[in-house]
């Protein structure tokens, strides 16, 4: 049986380490049931609790092929306590901390710190529209991160790479991948020497992505929701309010609804499930009140896995009939077997394309 490329051991050593303090704050607020969690979490970073959480996460960083790690403070409106931030960030024994920021407010505070504290911390500054500006190091030596961060012209490029890395790692967690093999003749079949899984539409796949296993714990749900929120919000750019550009999220099946429910809790934008769309969309079976929520509105379609793209197309047909405008499609995993035909490629944001790692094959039974 051919195994996918990436193994669990390989997943442990990551390409780039980025810490997301906003994600931890959002998770805390979800646990306590706080209203308006995103805006409250973004207001300010720098309390004692924030510093303690950062310290705890830095101590758990996995080994990386780079000699730096990033702390993404770009989403926060205000950042306080720069001395404690720098002190904690320098705790990692081998890697240099790079603090990602938008604007100059943190840098102004950083400049007032004594030289001994500024020596081994770097700042990567981005413009209000998310475009990369420069890396500023605290010492006269060349910053270690500049050569790598400069390759990504904007925050969205950098975060896209990190999202791909993270989601691919999650995929190789426990029980997320169903690899066909002998033992279950009703589920698996062998064709041309390789085992495949039978799908309900009669096609065969070399492995099956069971995203319900990824989304079963609240921490992992928050991690996935955060990856969806980043492109939906335009990576928190300051020149435009991307979140105001759409009214709701639409999901085409129950698994996507499970993974997008935390997004609803975080952004307080409704998530509408349009399921039971077989080969012929059952329009009359859909709830009229639900359709009223999206009629004439801009929506974002969230799909957990795109394989052939048919489910996206069916949903697009339905939404078109319901007079909703699909702004973008955000797909957690795109297996690139086919592609949706009723939407432009530029409007599809695929957070991870693991076809090569999975050696994914989609074929008929002939």
């Amino acid at each position: 049986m051919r195994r996918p490329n990436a193994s669990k051991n390989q997943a442990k050593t990551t390409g780039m380490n980025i810490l997301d303090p906003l994600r931890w704050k959002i998770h805390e607020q979800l646990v306590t049931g706080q209203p308006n969690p995103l805006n409250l979490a973004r207001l300010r970073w720098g309390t004692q609790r924030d510093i303690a959480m950062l310290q705890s996460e830095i101590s758990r960083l996995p080994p990386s092929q780079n000699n730096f790690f990033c702390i993404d403070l770009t989403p926060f409106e205000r950042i306080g306590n720069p001395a404690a931030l720098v002190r904690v960030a320098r705790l990692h024994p081998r890697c240099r901390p790079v603090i990602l920021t938008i604007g100059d407010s943190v840098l102004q505070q950083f400049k007032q710190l004594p030289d001994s504290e500024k020596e081994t911390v770097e700042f990567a500054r981005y413009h209000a529209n998310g475009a990369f500006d420069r890396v500023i190091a605290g010492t006269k030596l060349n910053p270690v991160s500049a050569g790598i961060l400069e390759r990504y012209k904007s925050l969205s490029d950098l975060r896209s790479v990190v999202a791909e890395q993270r989601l691919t790692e999650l995929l190789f967690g426990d029980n997320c991948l169903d690899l066909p093999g002998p033992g279950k003749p009703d589920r698996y079949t062998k064709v041309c020497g390789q085992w495949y899984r039978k799908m309900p539409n009669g096609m065969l796949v070399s492995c099956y992505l069971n995203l319900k296993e990824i989304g079963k714990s609240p921490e992992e749900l928050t991690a996935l929701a955060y990856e969806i929120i980043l492109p939906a919000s335009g990576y928190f750019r300051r020149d435009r309010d991307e979140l105001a550009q759409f009214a709701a999220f639409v999901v085409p099946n129950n698994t996507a609804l499970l993974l997008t429910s935390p997004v609803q809790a975080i952004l307080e934008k409704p998530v509408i499930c349009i399921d039971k769309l077989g080969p012929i969309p059952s329009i009359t079976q859909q709830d009229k009140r639900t359709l009223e929520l999206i009629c004439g509105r801009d929506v974002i379609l969230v799909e957990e896995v795109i394989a052939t793209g048919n489910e996206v197309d069916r949903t697009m047909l339905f939404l078109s009939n319901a007079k909703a405008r699909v702004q973008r499609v955000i797909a957690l995993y795109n297996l690139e077997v086919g592609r949706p035909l009723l939407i432009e490629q530029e409007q599809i944001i695929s957070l991870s394309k693991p076809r090569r790692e999975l050696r994914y094959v989609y074929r008929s039974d002939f």
Partner: protein
Amino acid sequence: MSTAPISKKEFNEILDRAELSNSSVLLDDCYAATFLNSVWEATHAIWENVDQKNYTRHGLDHSYRIIGYFFALDGLYDWTPYERMLFIAAALLHDIGMQVNIWGPSVKGWKSPEKGFSTDSVRRNHCRNGFKLISQFVRGKVELKFPPPFCERRTGYLTPLHRAAHIAFAHSGEEYLGYLAKDDQWRACKLQAENYRPRLLAGALRICDELDLCCSRIAYPEQIWGWNFSDESRRHWLACYFVEACEVKIHEKKLASMELRWRTPIASKSALVKNISTLISKLRVFKLNQEIQRVNSFLKQCNEAEYCLMSDVKMSKQPVDFAISGGVSLSKIGEVLRTASGRPSSDTRTGKSLVPAEAAVPPQSPSSVSENIQLIRPFSGPLKSTLRKWFDENKVPHHYALRNGEHTDTYVHCRSLVSNQELLRNLADTISMQHRHRGITAVLGVGTSAIPLAVNVAYRLNCCVSFTFLATSPGYHETELEVAFGRKHKLLMIDDIISSGRAASRILDRLRDRDGLPQEIYHHSIFRLGRQRYTDPERRIRSYSWFVHIPEVYYAPGERECSLCRAGTELIKESV
């Protein structure tokens, strides 16, 4: 824990532990040790002779234990010296209103009846009387004839007394808590570069007061049958009597785990032990969770949600034995516990009834309700009326055949309901409060509309979440029906609508055949429709709960029994 009034030596130990015993500690222009010692002397004088003997103890020993719980929360909140000083003063002051008949006549300018206030009036108004005394003292409108006064009459000392009073008297009821919420001077800020969080202190005092409902507060257990009490009040007494203490531990600076160590008389029969366990679970654990939820709501309302308390309240697994004191009748206790209604009939803090006025659940015949199924009544309040209004606006009256085979005259899609995050939040808060003490480890959303609610509940209960649904036609992918928990879990099933429970029962059949059933299963739905009996012959679900019951919806088990089919009404089949 000490049960006698605390001596000066014990109070000095408190000051040492709070690091305030050094007489030169100056906080906001007030010498902490001087201030606290004067408050102690005044309250010690107030509590020298206890007035109300038929209530639980409210004296300084109670204050001492509350302060102990406050110190236990230090791992979560990192109390500053000023906060410690204010809380200690508030803990000493908070119940002085129970002694109004003692100190009232000694206060020049104080109006009290000739024969003193009645017992009920003392209890109901103890916060108001205590606050009135302190605030009038601060403003110089009363002259205390009993020495010593609460503090020196200087601004540096009156300010912390004034603040401590606001914190102290918000411990009961909603009135003083409301003042703290509305007035901006009580918002969290920094005083001399250190945290000052008066609202959090008020919330902490409420929780610590609730934690100290244990046997140490029962002064005269043998007289419980002598006083003119209702059985409901006796059950509240017994719920304190059988709790030895509460242990608070902080985990990773995030979670406060509160374990109630309970006790049973030596050689109790298993039925009595079970009844005591049920009583404590329903009256102590439930009320403590309710209080924590109330405090968290208050902090969220004040935009200080970062101080909300994440807690895990449970009873210790095994009780300890104790020798029951003479005069306490075991048989009478057993009788009172056997007739327990299972829920407190009123909130002892606000006096508001917790049971809705109308009977929402029609009586079930004994054969259809097993001993293990507890029909928990829905909650009253604005949430219920909002849900009922939504149902009336969104129902579609017609003749339907549902996927589970039943026929009905009303159909409703709950998807637009669960797209409302504010409503979901309220629903999830209520569900998690109700089930938190059960140790739920898995949440299962049954059906599409239940998934967002199940996710919100799973966050609050910090457990795994999955979904499933009743697939009545082939072609559904198997993994869509699989779940993420096993036999060792305690499961909470969340559904949007329950009618006969047949769908839930069939889902459990499927789970049993595939992976085995979890240890304990509870069911909570938003709506309960119709008046059918629950069809769960194997009685696997321990309790059914819901928010709104709508009994007028018609259900028939199948086509043969359906009167609408007999009348020839057009039938619409629910989509598969």
